[in-house]
């Protein structure tokens, strides 16, 4: 994957993928923000860069937007190398976390600014601004000043302002970070609708896994300047590539295990089925909703520590010699919830036991 391209390969343009990052390294002084990133984003997809703060996701976005330059490597958009171009010459527009609306201009003039810079004739630009404002549901707000809008409305103006330029790629830098949960969920739906309407490639940076899961076609989970896992939300959730990914996305239970074929032996000596994939000392990961609890003794024995009713499911914490931390199970059927102190046995179908590299 990371082999050095030959001269012939370098000379020929790469595949016309939406965006392609080739062995991109970014260092700030002695600190390395990105360690040789290879990434292909397809034309028209909703792509999420997900990870904790400092993982390199915002650096990746800024590299595509042109606000920082790569230390090594190349960036291509639709077959054109762009990492040497200044921001205002790239076919890319950005929605900033702070919106960065221009407070001295009306909403209409904010959205028209980019077209003015491109010398788009007045008649055409007015039409495009109207169309863009309609897309985000703010056609009535053109004459307002940004300070007269709510946070959610300001966010929509920022989206309209970026999309009016019909960029090949729209970059979104935690655009919903400053909004409350209800509004965030509503705007998530709106953003996916807008994405469907315009068909532009969206690259969305967030540290919120739910946001990424609910919107993205594909997610790149980043950690420490690397992509740990790249895949659809379902793949990333069901078959995480590493313990970090499993831990970062959703809830998970971890067991130390020794794997032989599709059987894992846990530290308490019990043997359970697993998905396999590697052998020897490993970490076995099971999602809470994959765990079934039965009364009475079984292969993995435990005792109920706590049960919590959480609306659509009951969360049960079980103490077991097979794992260091209490194992968490999420039960959908509210009828058969064990009581605190009950002796139970844990099980799951072999396909739900994901085998990962052990820590360290």
């Amino acid at each position, binding site marked *: 994957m990371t082999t050095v391209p030959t001269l012939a390969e370098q000379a020929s343009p790469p595949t016309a993928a939406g965006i392609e990052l080739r062995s991109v390294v970014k260092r700030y002084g002695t600190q390395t923000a990105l360690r040789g990133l290879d990434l292909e984003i397809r034309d028209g997809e909703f792509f999420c860069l997900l990870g904790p703060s400092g993982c390199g996701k915002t650096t990746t976005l800024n590299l595509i937007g042109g606000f920082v330059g790569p230390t090594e490597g190349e960036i291509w958009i639709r077959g054109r190398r762009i990492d040497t171009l200044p921001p205002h010459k790239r076919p890319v*527009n950005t929605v*900033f976390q*702070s919106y*960065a609306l221009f407070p*001295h201009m009306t909403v209409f003039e904010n959205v028209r*600014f980019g077209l003015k810079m491109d010398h788009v004739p007045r008649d055409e630009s007015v039409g495009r601004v109207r169309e863009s404002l309609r897309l985000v549901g703010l056609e009535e707000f053109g004459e307002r000043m940004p*300070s007269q809008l709510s946070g959610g409305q300001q966010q929509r103006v920022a989206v309209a302002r*970026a999309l009016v330029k019909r960029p090949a790629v729209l970059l979104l830098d935690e655009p919903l970070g400053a909004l409350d949960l209800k509004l965030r969920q509503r705007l998530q739906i709106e953003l996916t609708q807008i994405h469907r309407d315009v068909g532009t490639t969206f690259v969305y940076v967030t540290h919120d896994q739910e946001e990424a899961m609910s919107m993205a076609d594909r997610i790149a989970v980043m950690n420490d300047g690397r992509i740990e896992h790249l895949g659809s939300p379902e793949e990333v959730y069901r078959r995480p590539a590493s313990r970090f990914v499993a831990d970062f996305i959703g809830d998970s239970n971890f067991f130390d295990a020794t794997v032989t074929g599709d059987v894992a032996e846990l530290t308490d000596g019990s043997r359970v089925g697993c998905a396999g994939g590697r052998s020897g000392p490993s970490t076995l990961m099971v999602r809470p909703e994959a765990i079934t609890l039965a009364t009475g003794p079984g292969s993995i024995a435990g005792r109920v520590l706590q049960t919590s009713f959480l609306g659509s499911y009951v969360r049960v914490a079980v103490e077991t010699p097979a794992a260091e931390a209490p194992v968490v199970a999420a039960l959908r059927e509210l009828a058969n919830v064990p009581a605190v102190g009950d002796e139970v046995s844990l099980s799951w179908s072999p396909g739900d036991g994901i085998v990962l590299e052990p820590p360290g």
Partner: protein
Amino acid sequence: MSAQADTAAARRSGRRRGARIGSGLASYAGFVPAIVLLGLCFLVPLGIIVCYSFWETIDYEVVHHWTFSNYTYFFSVSAYVSTMWATLWVAVVATALAIGLAFPFAYWLSRYVPQRLRVPLLVLVIVPFWTSYLLRVYSWLTILGDQGVLNRFLQWAGITNHPLGVFLYDRPAVILVLVYLYFPFGALTLYSSIDRFDWNQLRAAMDLGASPAQAIFRILVPQIKPGIITAIIFVFIPILGEYLTPQIVGGTGGVMIGNLIVNFFQEAEYTRGAAVSLLIAGFIVVLLLIFRKSLSAKEAYGA
């Protein structure tokens, strides 16, 4: 607007109280020290100057005889009128240069200098104020004069074998020293206004296709316009009244209107001096009235 409503309400309640005017006056008692101070130190002297400018000087005596002759005399002497135009010209050029230097400095300071280094740098800008104004102007003689640092360096470097007199005693020297003197006013005013700016807006502008220069002039400058106008006022108005700088480094070629006023007063032509002073004051009032309109733009977008 609310202030108008307040005064209207105050007027109405005042009428309702009717005879109790005394208590209405009492509510202004707190302003007495300010009114006395303003009256004694500002309004009374101004009134005296206004009167003087319409009186006559005969045999070094001020005669209380009302006339416009001081004003007509000033405009009848072409040397005075050309000095007035030269003063305006010098003030405009010096202000433009001082603000032109202060803007990049303030921009650099608030955008690129780390927070912990900003206060030391601002202190460095203010440090010259700790020395006397007179001393700071005189020190330029030791830089620009025949035996000054600049001439010695040029002779040492072999560029010339005798001191060059071109650096001193003309308008360029006056402008140079004025720019040096008034740069801090411009820099501090602009810095306090730029410091509140959200730099993401410049990134956004460039992201939308603006070149760096377009981003600065279309996004940053309109938003700090009140600060720029304040800086211009702080620099331009005092320069209009400057007389020490042209006197010390300006020679005969660098005379400004302030020197004319000093000369009139030294020759006991008090009434003519008063008239010229009021000409400058009147000009400044007109300028402020024009600027006040642009300053109210501040309210337009609730900055």
